[in-house]
Every structure is written in C-alpha cells, then in structure tokens.
C-alpha cells in the first residue's frame, strides 16, 4: 500500500474517524483506524467499536492499493502535528512509514484481518438541512438525561412522519420537543428511533457543516446511520420503550407571560448567583413585570425586576436556575413565552419574535417542572 494525501485532508479525516475510539479497548484492534487505499484514488478510513462506526472517504494519489490497521489515536496526533505539506504513507513489511517534509514516522500495524466489518448502512429515510438539524439537536439534547442508570432517558426520541421530523428528550424534570421539516425519501415514511443524545450532538458537530445530512433508519433496524460530505457514521439504537411523554404537555394553559429572552437570561444569571445547589430561582409574574428572586433566610439573597407582559392571573413559581437558563438559551427568539396552568404544574416555554405574539412559534416547546418545598 502506498498513497499521498494533503496534510489538512488527512488530519481532518483521521481526527473525525478516530474521535470515538475508546481509550481502553476491550480488544486491542478496536483502538485502530483502518486505512484502505483503492486504485480509483479513494482513501477510506474506518473505525468501529461495536456500538458506533465511522467511515470517511477522501481523495488521495494511490500508487499501490492496500489496507492497514494502525493506532487511531497516534495517527490522529501525528497527522495534526505534521507540517503543511503532502503526506506520503506506505506499508513496508509490518510497519507503516509516514513522511511529510523532513519528518518521518514509523508505526506498528495491527492485524487488519481481525478487524470487525462495519455494519451496513440501513435504508435511506431522507435528508435534512445540516444547520436546521444541528439547531434542532442542540435544542433538545439539553433536556436529555445524563444518568447512565436510566439509559432510556439518555436517548433522544426521533419520530419521522412524512415531511415532519420530531425530536424529543427528557430527564424527567424538563422535556424538550422540536419539530422540523425535512425531505423524506417517501412522503409516507413513518419511523421512530431512540438515539443516544451524545451521538446526535456529535452528528450536529461533525456532519452539519456540509449542507445536507442523510438519515438512514430502515425499518426495524437496530442502528441509525448519518451521512454527509463523504462521512458516514452509524450508532446502535437505545433499546426500550420510550414513555409517552407528549401527553405531559398541558392541553391548554390559563396564564401566559411574554418577556425579553435576553433580559430574562441576564437577570436569571445574576440572581442565580446566590441560589445554592438544589435551590430555586423564584419568578413572580404580575401585571407588567416579573420579579426574580433567589436565596432565603440567613443565606445571601438577590432580586431583580423586569418588564414582562402578563395575560391571565398573576402567578409565582420557582425553577431550577440551570433548567430555566437551558431552555431560554435554546429558544433563539427575541421573546420568551411562559405558559402556565398552575404554579405547581409544569410550565411551557416557547419563543416568539414580536411582543404581541403574532409569530408565536410552537415548533420548539420546552416543558419545565417547578421546584417546590418539601412541606
């Protein structure tokens, strides 16, 4: 095997492909990245740890086709630190020689025949604009659980229904739901999957900048695949029945408030400074204003009043400051609408760009459970 490739192209491809490699693999070969150069001038890099697979293809000048398995971590570090010159890679005996300008590295190879084959990509379900997908993912993954003892909740539920793709995530304390339109392969497609939130975040980070992202879910497959710009990744789905969380959204609300998102974020951050761990930030909405408060008794206290529009009865509630800020940061709209049924029941956060709510958008909804006191 012998090929030449641009340093930046190699570094990007290796870094992305090797990004999910385990630090302590159960089998040594799983720490490797497989390089495969073919006569058509394509270099394919692959990794697989039985859960997540990654494959990227770049153009290379191939002198001799062939394939090798080398340490992914080491190859990634080397390629990132090489000078900006063409890189020559060749197999000599059982070693891989990398030369770039005046630098020369010799790497041991691992038995490439022992490397597991990557899973096939499921059937293509459709495609979505990379930026829109990345935004939707970032809006829902904030609410996904991080507790690995509840694996179900570390997932994001992906629902595909014709031209609508819905993402849902909850850690039991808040629930984020985002609907986004996409281009299905068939207008009648109807599929659901539970995908680990970190897999989706990774897709948003590494695949969305290249225009359109292909999503492959297949029917009854146990993996999901994503492909964009010559990169393809698959991931095992999370097993289990996702709870019917949509019904947690109230059918109707009795009070709603509209506040400047940026002002509310700023004020909440300031007031939250005195909220000790597990203690809430209190919000009292009255006609024309909201007062934020935190701290109690002998502890440090803070309060701040903001302009806010109230429709309905005045209401006072309390939230975990971080959960409130997570939702506000995900809105991406000028104004934040909080809708209530009761101070002790979940509140719905939605966004709108005008204060009168003519453009009130419900494609992103964030349901937030208040904090109460034990007695």
């Amino acid at each position: 095997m012998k090929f030449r490739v641009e340093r930046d192209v190699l570094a990007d491809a290796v870094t992305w492909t090797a990004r999910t490699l385990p630090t302590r693999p159960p089998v040594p070969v799983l720490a490797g990245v497989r390089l495969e150069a073919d006569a058509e001038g394509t270099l394919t890099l692959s990794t697989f740890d039985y859960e997540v697979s990654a494959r990227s293809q770049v153009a290379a000048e191939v002198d001799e086709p062939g394939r090798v398995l080398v340490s992914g971590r080491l190859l990634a570090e080397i390629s990132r630190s090489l000078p900006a010159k063409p890189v020559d890679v060749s197999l000599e005996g059982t070693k891989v020689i990398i030369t770039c300008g005046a630098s020369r590295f010799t790497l041991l190879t691992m038995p490439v025949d022992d490397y597991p084959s990557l899973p096939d990509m499921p059937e293509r379900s459709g495609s979505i604009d990379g930026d829109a997908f990345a935004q939707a993912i970032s809006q829902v993954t904030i609410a996904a659980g991080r507790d690995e003892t509840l694996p179900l909740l570390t997932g994001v539920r992906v629902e595909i229904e014709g031209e609508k793709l819905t993402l849902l995530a909850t850690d039991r304390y808040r629930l984020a739901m985002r609907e986004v339109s996409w281009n299905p392969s068939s207008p009648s497609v109807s599929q659901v999957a539970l995908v680990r939130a970190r897999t989706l975040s990774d897709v948003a980070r590494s695949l969305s900048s290249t225009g359109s992202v292909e999503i492959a879910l297949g029917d009854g497959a146990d993996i999901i695949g994503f492909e964009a710009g010559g990169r393809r990744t698959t991931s095992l789905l999370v097993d289990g029945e996702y709870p019917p969380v949509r019904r947690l959204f109230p059918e109707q609300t009795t009070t709603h408030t509209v506040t400047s998102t940026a002002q509310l974020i700023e004020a909440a951050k300031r007031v939250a400074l005195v909220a000790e761990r597990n203690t809430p930030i209190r919000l009292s909405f009255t006609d024309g204003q909201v007062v934020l408060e935190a701290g109690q008794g002998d502890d440090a206290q803070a309060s701040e009043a903001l302009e806010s529009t109230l429709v309905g009865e005045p209401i006072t509630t309390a939230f975990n400051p971080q959960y409130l800020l997570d939702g506000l940061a995900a809105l991406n709209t000028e104004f934040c609408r909080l809708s209530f049924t009761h101070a002790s029941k979940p509140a719905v956060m939605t966004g709108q760009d005008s204060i009168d709510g003519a453009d009130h958008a419900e494609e992103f909804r964030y349901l937030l459970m208040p904090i109460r006191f034990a007695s």
Partner: protein
Amino acid sequence: MSRGPRSEAANRDWGADDSGTPILHVDMDAFFAAVELIDRPELRGRPVIVGGQHRGVVLSATYEARAAGVHSAMPMSRARALCPQAIVISPDHRRYRDVSREVMRILGEVTPVIEPLSIDEAFLDVSGARRRVGPPTVIAERIRERIARELHVIASVGIASTKFVAKLASSHAKPDGMLLIPHEATIPFLHALPVGALWGVGERTQETLARLAIHTVADLAHTPPPALYRLVGAASGQRLLDLAWGRDPRAVEPVRQEKSIGHEQTFFTDLTDLADLSAVLLDQSHRCAARLRAAELVTSGVSIKVRLADFTTLTRSHPLDAATDVAHDIYMAARSLLAGMTLPPGGVRLLGVRCDALSDSATTAVQATLDDPGTERRDAERTMDVVRARYGASALTAGSLIGTPATAKGKSDIS
C-alpha cells in the same frame, strides 16, 4: 389540641407547694387558630377553624368553634355542619413553624432541659432554673406572660412532679390557664379523673374496663392487679397501674438533632418470602415517614439492613432523587434495595429501614418530576398522622399491611 377526658372537678386549686414539682408541660391553646388570629384580630371571639378547605380534616379550632362541638381530626364536612358560621382558614404550616420556633426559643431561655413533643407543646424540667429565675409557678407565669406579650398567642402550663401528671394538668388548665399539682396532691388529682385520662385508654379499653366497673382512675388504682391483668394483659395492666399511682420515672429528655431515623425488626422465625419482607419494609417505611413528619424533617437517602440466619449483616443504601417524608417514596427505595440483593434460602432474621441525609422540610427544595403526582400521598399520610394521634397507632394502616407479619411476627426497635 388536647382532647383527653377532663374533669371539671379536677380543675381546682390543689395547693401552692411547688417544691417537688419541677416538670412543666407547656401547651399552646388552639395553636394554629391562634396564630391565624395574630394577623386577623378582627376574628377574635368568633369561631375559626383551620383545616383543608374542602375534603380535609380540622387541624385546629378556636374555643368558640369548639363550643359547637368541633374538634381536631374531625372531617371538615362534619365541622361545617356543626358550626356553619365558622370561618375556615387554610393552614399555613410555615407560619406555624416560625411561631413555634419562637415559642421554643423563649422556653429555651428558661432552661436547656426542654423536650418538644410537637409543634405546639413541650416538657421542661426547671429544677436547675429555680435559683436563677424562681420556683416553678413563677417560671410558668413568666413563660405564659412572655409568650402572650411577645408572640400574641396563649400557652397553658401544667406543673407537676412527673411528665404524665404535668400533661394532664395543662389540659385541665386550658384555656389560658396554669395548674399546679403539688407532689402531695398527685394521687388525689389522678384519682379524681375518669379512667380515659390515662395514656393508652381509648374507647375500646374503656369498654373493657367498664366490665369490671372501672370508670375512674381511682377505680383502676384499687383494682386487684391479677384481675386487671386478665382483662387488659399484664404489660398494659402494669403500665396503667403505674400511671394511676403517679409512677412515671421518665425524665425530660432534650432532643438532639437527629442524624438518621430508622426502624428495624427481629423476627421470631426467619422470613424467607419476599412478599413478607416487603410488607415489613412497608410498615417500617410508614413508621419512619411518620417520625420524619413529626420532626419536620425530610430524608434524601434510604438504606436497608438485612441480617441473615447465620448473623451475616448486610446493608445497602441509595440516595433519593428528591427529599421526602412520604412512606411510599421511602418504601419504593427500600424495596428496590431489597430486590437488588440475593438472599440465601436460610431466610432473614432481622430487617430494617433507615432514613439519613435529613434536612429541614421547610427549607428543602424539591425538584419534582414532570409526572409528579403532587401532594396527594403526602396529604393522605398527614391525615393518617392526625387519625393515629387521636385513636392510636393501630387505628389506621396501609391496606396491604393488615394481617401481615409486619406487626405480628417480631419485636421492633426504633432508633
């Protein structure tokens, strides 16, 4: 609010010798209602009931409402029927706790030997305060005067040589009074009371005792012990006789801040059935939760202790997602801990539940889950507390515990 049988005849001057009576029982009059009247003085002199607006029970009532027959733990619907003109106020437990804390602070300035029994009553042993402040009657008057002046609520005080008699004295002193039972007058005072005044003598026991024509404490005190034991059992019989003769050696025990609350039980025969063990855990969870609520604490961690037939002792603990004082939550955590253990076929000799990571329920914030069922369970268990306080611990229990080994197959320890 005190509902024990009282005798008008017993509320008289029993003498002024307070040299042998260092025990004070301070009991607030209609406490929750009285606190409400602080902010709403226009309601003074009118019947006021504190309790759930719709389905709840009466938590407290002013003497004007009591005159109509209203008493605590009575269903609100019945109270409204008895006293339709009463003003009903929803309870504000935080406010009651604040005032209670102030009351306890005033008591704490008299003596550190103070044993709070609940939010509105406490025992004091003023032996050590005699030289600094004065004799018990002077101390009691000062306490009553300070509480009335500074907090605008009323305390009645019983003064006696033992806790039991002091408590009886305070109930006879109400409302707004003070009653000294000199040491020498203890037995005459007790013997003037109906037998229902004794701790542990409820309606059922009264009926039983009536078969031997025992109607007063004096009757009981003069019943030959063997006859009494045959009727109510040796242990209760002995205890009743001790009380009837004023023998109550319990000292006033200042409570320390509890670090954990637990119940454990050793079985007469080792238990092997998971359902039996779960029933024990449920019973213990209820006991722990009731004590947490009484102490106004919540727990954030549950552990279980399992001793096997060969005396191997295993403990498992689990932090709770949200602080609680609800038996259901404690039980769910305890049961999942038990389910996670592999128990040998030899069975379990001892089982216990412990709640730790305790904190003040008034100031502990709880991030509820989106599917939070609300406070229904807690309200139900609080109502159980009220019923049990009136009719005894066995009056009400979880349906699944009726006739289970939890109450029948072993001896219990609390800690």
